[in-house]
C-alpha cells in the first residue's frame, strides 16, 4: 500500500513515481481497469436514474414515489456501486489493486466533472466559431458581432458596472455592519446579524419579485402608490417615478437587489476575519493613542486584507454570472441587459447557438484571472499545511 506519509507531507511533490520498484508498474491493463472502475458507477447510476425518472413518470406514478426511488438510488444505490467496485478491485491480482483502487474513489467524480464541465467547455469554445445552428465555421464573426453590436456592447458596459459597484457596496456595507455589530454584546450581535444574513436564503427570482414590489409605480391619478419607494417619494410631495424605466439609473436599482442579497455573505466572512485579529494588536494601537477610526484603518484593515480579497473575488464571480435578476425584472430591456443574461437570451430565446456560445466564452475568459488567483491561493495554502 502506498505510504500515507508520502501523500500528506509532500503536497508540493508533482506526479507520483511508484516507490515499489519490485512490483510491475502500471501497464495497459491497469489503465483499462482504471477507466473501467471510473465509468462503472456513473453509467450504472445513470441507467437506474433514467429508469426511475422516465419509466416511472411515464406510468404516471406518484411523484413522491419517484423522489423516494431517486433517493434510494442516490444514496444507497451509489454507495452500493462504490462498494461493489471496491469488492471487484479486491479480487484483482494484488499488484493491480494498488494502482486501480484510487480510481474507485476519485474516478466517478472525475467522469462526472468531465461530462458536465470539461467536455461542455471545450464544445462551447468550438461552437463559438460556428453559426447560429452550430454548423460550419464562421471564424471570429460571432466575436466581431459581440464587440460591435450596440446591444451587446451595452450589456458589456453594464456587466462591468455591476462587477465594480455591487462588490464595492456589498463589502462596504458588510464590513461596516460587522464592525458595528462587534461592539454589541454577543446576543445582540448574533440577533442583528441574522436579519442581514437572511436574504442569503432567498432566490434571485424571489428577491427580484420582492424588489419589484418596492419599485412599483403608478402614474399620478391612477390610485395610491403601493410601492414603498414611490410611497415615500410621493409622500414628500414629488411626482411618482417609474424607477425601472429611468435609464441609466435603472441599472443601479437592479444592482441594489444583489447588494441586498450579498451583504450577508460579506459580513459573515469579514466578521470572522475581524474576530481573528488578536486583541493585543488592537489594544496596542489604542495605547499608542489611536482613535477608533485609526485603529480600524491602520490595524484591522491591514490584518484582514487577504480575507477582503477572498470576499471581493467571490462576489465579483457571483455578480459576473448573474442572470436571473435582469431576466425577471426587465428581461434586459430599457438599457439593463448584462452579458450573462444576453447569453441565455441569444441561445435559449433566439436559438443562436454560435453567438450564445461566444458570449459564454467571453464570460469565461474574463473570469480566468480570478480562476488563476484562486489556484495560486490554494497552492499557497497547501504549502503551509
Amino acid at each position, binding site marked *: 500500500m502506498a505510504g500515507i506519509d508520502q501523500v500528506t507531507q509532500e503536497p508540493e511533490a508533482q506526479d507520483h513515481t511508484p516507490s515499489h520498484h519490485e512490483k510491475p508498474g502500471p501497464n495497459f491493463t491497469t489503465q483499462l481497469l482504471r477507466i473501467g472502475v471510473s465509468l462503472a458507477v456513473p453509467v450504472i447510476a*445513470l441507467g437506474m436514474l*433514467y429508469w426511475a425518472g422516465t419509466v416511472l413518470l411515464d406510468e404516471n406514478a406518484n411523484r413522491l414515489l419517484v423522489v423516494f426511488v431517486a433517493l434510494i438510488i442516490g444514496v444507497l444505490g451509489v454507495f452500493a456501486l462504490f462498494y461493489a467496485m471496491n469488492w471487484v478491485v479486491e479480487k484483482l491480482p494484488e499488484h493491480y489493486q494498488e494502482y486501480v483502487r484510487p480510481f474507485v474513489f476519485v474516478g466517478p*467524480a472525475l467522469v*462526472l466533472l468531465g461530462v*458536465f464541465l470539461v467536455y*461542455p467547455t471545450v464544445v462551447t469554445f468550438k461552437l463559438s466559431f460556428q453559426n447560429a445552428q452550430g454548423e460550419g465555421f464562421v471564424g471570429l464573426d460571432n466575436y466581431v458581432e459581440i464587440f460591435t453590436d450596440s446591444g451587446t456592447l451595452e450589456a458589456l458596459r453594464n456587466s462591468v458596472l455591476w462587477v465594480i459597484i455591487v462588490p464595492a457596496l456589498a463589502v462596504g456595507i458588510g464590513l461596516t455592519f460587522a464592525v458595528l455589530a462587534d461592539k454589541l454584546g*454577543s446576543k445582540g450581535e448574533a440577533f442583528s446579524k441574522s436579519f442581514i444574513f437572511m436574504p442569503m*436564503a432567498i432566490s434571485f427570482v424571489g428577491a427580484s419579485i420582492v424588489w419589484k414590489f418596492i419599485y412599483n409605480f403608478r402614474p399620478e391619478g391612477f390610485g395610491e402608490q403601493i410601492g414603498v419607494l414611490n410611497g415615500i417619494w410621493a409622500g414628500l410631495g414629488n411626482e411618482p417615478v417609474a424607477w425601472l424605466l429611468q435609464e441609466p439609473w435603472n441599472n443601479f436599482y437592479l444592482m441594489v437587489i444583489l447588494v441586498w442579497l450579498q451583504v450577508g455573505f460579506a459580513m459573515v466572512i469579514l466578521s470572522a476575519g475581524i474576530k481573528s485579529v488578536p486583541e493585543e494588536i488592537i*489594544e496596542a494601537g489604542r495605547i499608542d493613542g489611536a482613535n477608533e477610526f485609526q485603529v480600524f484603518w491602520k490595524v484591522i484593515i491591514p490584518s484582514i486584507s487577504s480575507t477582503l480579497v*477572498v470576499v471581493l473575488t467571490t462576489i465579483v464571480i457571483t455578480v459576473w454570472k448573474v442572470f436571473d435578476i435582469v431576466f425577471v425584472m426587465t428581461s434586459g430591456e430599457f438599457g439593463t441587459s448584462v452579458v450573462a443574461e444576453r447569453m441565455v437570451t441569444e441561445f435559449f430565446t433566439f436559438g443562436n447557438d454560435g453567438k450564445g456560445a461566444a458570449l459564454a466564452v467571453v464570460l469565461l475568459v474574463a473570469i480566468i484571472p480570478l480562476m488563476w488567483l484562486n489556484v495560486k491561493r490554494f497552492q499557497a495554502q497547501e504549502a503551509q499545511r
Partner: protein
Amino acid sequence: MTTTERTPLKADYVPPQPSFLSRLFYRWPVKLAIIAIVVIWIIPTLGILISSFRPPALVETTGWWTVFTDLGSNEWTFSNYTNVLQSEGFGNSFLNSLSVTIPATVMPITIAAFAAYGFAWMDFPGRQWLFVLVVALLVIPLQMALIPLLRLYTTVNLNGTFPAVWLAHTGFGLPLAIYLLRNYIGSLPSSMMESADIDGASHFERFTKLVVPLSVPVLASFAIFQFLWVWNDLLVALVFLGGEPDVRVITLALNNLNGSRGQAWHLLTAGAFITMALPLVVFLSLQRYFVRGLTAGSVKG
C-alpha cells in the same frame, strides 16, 4: 448564529474602561446605525409578507405600510395562498422543486465524499493537477455548459426529465463539494489514519468507519449550500426541465406568474413567500453549519 470568541487576553491585562459619558456617546450611535441598517434590510421581506395576507382589494388600493397607521381598516386572509397554490399551480411546482432538490442535494455528497477521500489520503498519478483542475472548475460559469449539455441530453432523450436536472446539478455541485470535503478530510490527523492502516483496515473501511462519521459537520455544510442553490436555481431548471406545468419548478412558476400577471400583487407576494418559505426554514435552523461552511471555504486557517 454562532460568533467566534475573540482570542483571549492575557489574564493580567485589564483593558482601559471607557467613562460613562464616552460610553453614552459611543454606544448609542452604534446601536442606532445597526437598527437603521436592520430595518432597511427587513422592509422588503416584510412588505411581501404583510401584503400576501391582505385581501386583493386592499393590496391594490393602499400601501402595505398602512396596516401600521390605519389600524381600523385592516383585514387579513389566506385566500391569496390558496389561490396561488391551487389555481396558479404553485402546489404542484412546490412538489416538483422538492423532487428536483432532494436527490440533487444527496447525490453529489456520496460521490464527492469518496473523491475527497481519494484526493486526501490516496496516491495516484495526476493527484496534484487533477485537484488543481477541481479548484479551477469552481468558477466556471454555468453558461459555458448549457448549449452542449442541452444537445447531449437531446441526443440521449433525457431532455425535460428529472434525471437530467439531477445529474446537471450533481455535476455542477461537485467542484465545491470535493473542494470543501477534501480540505476537511485532509486535515484529519494522519496518525489516526496510520494506526487504522496498521490495524489492517482497508481504505474502504477507513472511509466508511472513520472518515464519514467524523465528517458529518462538513457534509451538513455542503448539503445546506447545495439545497439552497438547487431550490433557488432558475437557469438549470429552465433550460433542462422547461416550463410544462407537470415538471416546472417553483422559481419558474414565480417567474411565469410575474410574466402573465405582473400586476396581481396579492398573488405575486403570496407566490414569492411560498418560494422563500422552505429555504428560510432550512437556513435559519441550520445557520450554524452554513456559517461554518462559508468560513471554512473562504477564510484560511
